[in-house]
């Protein structure tokens, strides 16, 4: 296990989704569903990882959709703020509360974030939005906060299909996320 960044899984075909997760975590159960329509590259992010490490590792020709679970959210936010052109859309799964002292560099710059941002949180546990999501909403009113019903903190473990569906739709539609393109036609 690298204390910076390591590729854990590369699966599927299609536009690239880069998923950052803790280095010691098993690959997200949402990956198989995402890999039906995307090439999913899963990176383990170690405690010493920095945004630059991710950029070097990805080395993609086109901007990628970036997804980060839990603690990897800090690295993902840092990357998007440093290299906004490298990321077409950013999704955070149950992000931790930013420590405004420790994460001051991120917190101060959130208002300048222009990359489309999706935040997924569970409905179990505290009533209403968690402080981490509220902070992001306050800094960036256009960010999309979505409750994943009947999930706790481990959203992608508990409801992998639901999480994958939200991520896939967001990766495809980005700025147009509010308007579905899914057909309701039953019988042509």
């Amino acid at each position, binding site marked *: 296990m690298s204390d910076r960044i390591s590729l854990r899984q590369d699966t599927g075909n299609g536009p690239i989704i880069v998923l950052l997760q803790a280095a010691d975590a098993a690959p997200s159960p949402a990956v198989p569903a995402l890999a039906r329509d995307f090439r999913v590259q899963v990176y383990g992010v170690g405690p010493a990882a920095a945004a630059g490490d991710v950029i070097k590792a990805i080395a993609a020709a086109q901007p990628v959709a970036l997804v980060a679970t839990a603690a990897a959210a800090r690295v993902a936010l840092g990357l998007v703020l440093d290299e906004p052109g490298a990321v077409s859309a950013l999704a955070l799964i149950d992000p931790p509360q930013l420590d405004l002292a420790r994460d001051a560099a991120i917190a101060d710059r959130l208002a300048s974030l222009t990359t489309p941002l999706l935040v997924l949180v569970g409905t179990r546990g505290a009533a209403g939005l968690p402080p981490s999501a509220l902070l992001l909403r306050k800094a960036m009113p256009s960010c999309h*906060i*979505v409750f*994943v*019903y009947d999930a706790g903190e481990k959203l992608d473990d508990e409801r992998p299909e639901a999480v994958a569906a939200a991520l896939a739709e967001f990766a495809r539609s980005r700025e147009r996320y509010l308007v579905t393109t899914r057909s309701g036609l039953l019988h042509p």
Partner: protein
Amino acid sequence: MKAALFCPVRYSDPAAGSGWPVSGNAYSSDRAEQSMSAALAQLKLADDVGFDWVTLAEHHYSPFSLTPNPMVFAGALTQVVRRAKIALLGATIPILNPIRVAEEFAMLDTMSGGRIVAGMLRGSPNEYATYNINPAESRERFEEALTLIRMAWTETEPFGWQGRYYEYRTVSIWPRPVQQPHPQIFMSGSSPESGEFAAVNRISLGLAFTNVPLAKQSVAHYRAHAERAGWNPTADDIIYRVLFHVADTDEQAIEDYANAAKAAPRSSLTMANKDLETAVDASGYYGRDRDMQRQRLMPTDLKESIALGRVLIGSPDTVVRQIERIRQELGAGLLDLTIGNDLGEKTLRSIELVGTKVLPRIRELGNA
């Protein structure tokens, strides 16, 4: 103890048709308008004579009830019923758009100055054919829809919802409920599964189309699970729906009721279509105590109905005694007094007698 008047807003011609769904061939718009006007008059009278609540419900495709969307009727009620709470018992949320339900309740709460009681039900089994929803999904849809509605009422930031049955990219309702954090929610607690969900989620309990012995079991189950969840429901958390007719004497009340029953034999909406009921049963709709759930829908004769506490009938003195028994056995703090058949002036007299001669005598029940 408190009382509500439940008016199903029946179509006034008993010969309009039977079964479910009911053909519209014999439908008269004049009759429907008269039926709705009569219902408004009954509910207004209830407000005038001191009922605590007036109640509406949702039923479809039948002269049994002309309020497929009770929210619409409740909108009119907010301008006619000026004091009593207006209870919708309820919206059949598994077959509806939950966000629309949250918005409509919030509108009504605003229009009524915070007098709405929000019933949310799975509804009678036949309703699943109304909007083509699989009854096997009923309970899961109900639980998710209720959670979503409560979130729509309480969360002030726009949010999306990635559910099992519902998906929204953004939700941010206007208007919002007057009552904070939201109107009191009631749900049916006749099945053990429902009682458990209500207890865990601190939701008040409604008992309808049942009888006192069965309701007593349901209340005990609900209270036991509420205690495990760390709270104790009060009497105001339990409402029991019961048919009623009060006249000046016992003999008159029974004669009125019997004549009405002859003119319009009662049948539950579900049992009115046996094939439908069999199909709903096969879907697993009734849950783990299926036999009891089906049994409580079966009709009983008047004598048995009185004995089981399904009907309150008689003079004010007699009905007070019948209510005392229900209060004692169930611990319910609210009675949802149901107009079985609209008997015109006799129904208005019945409402008036409850307001003037029954309600003052049951107010202190349970407070001793």
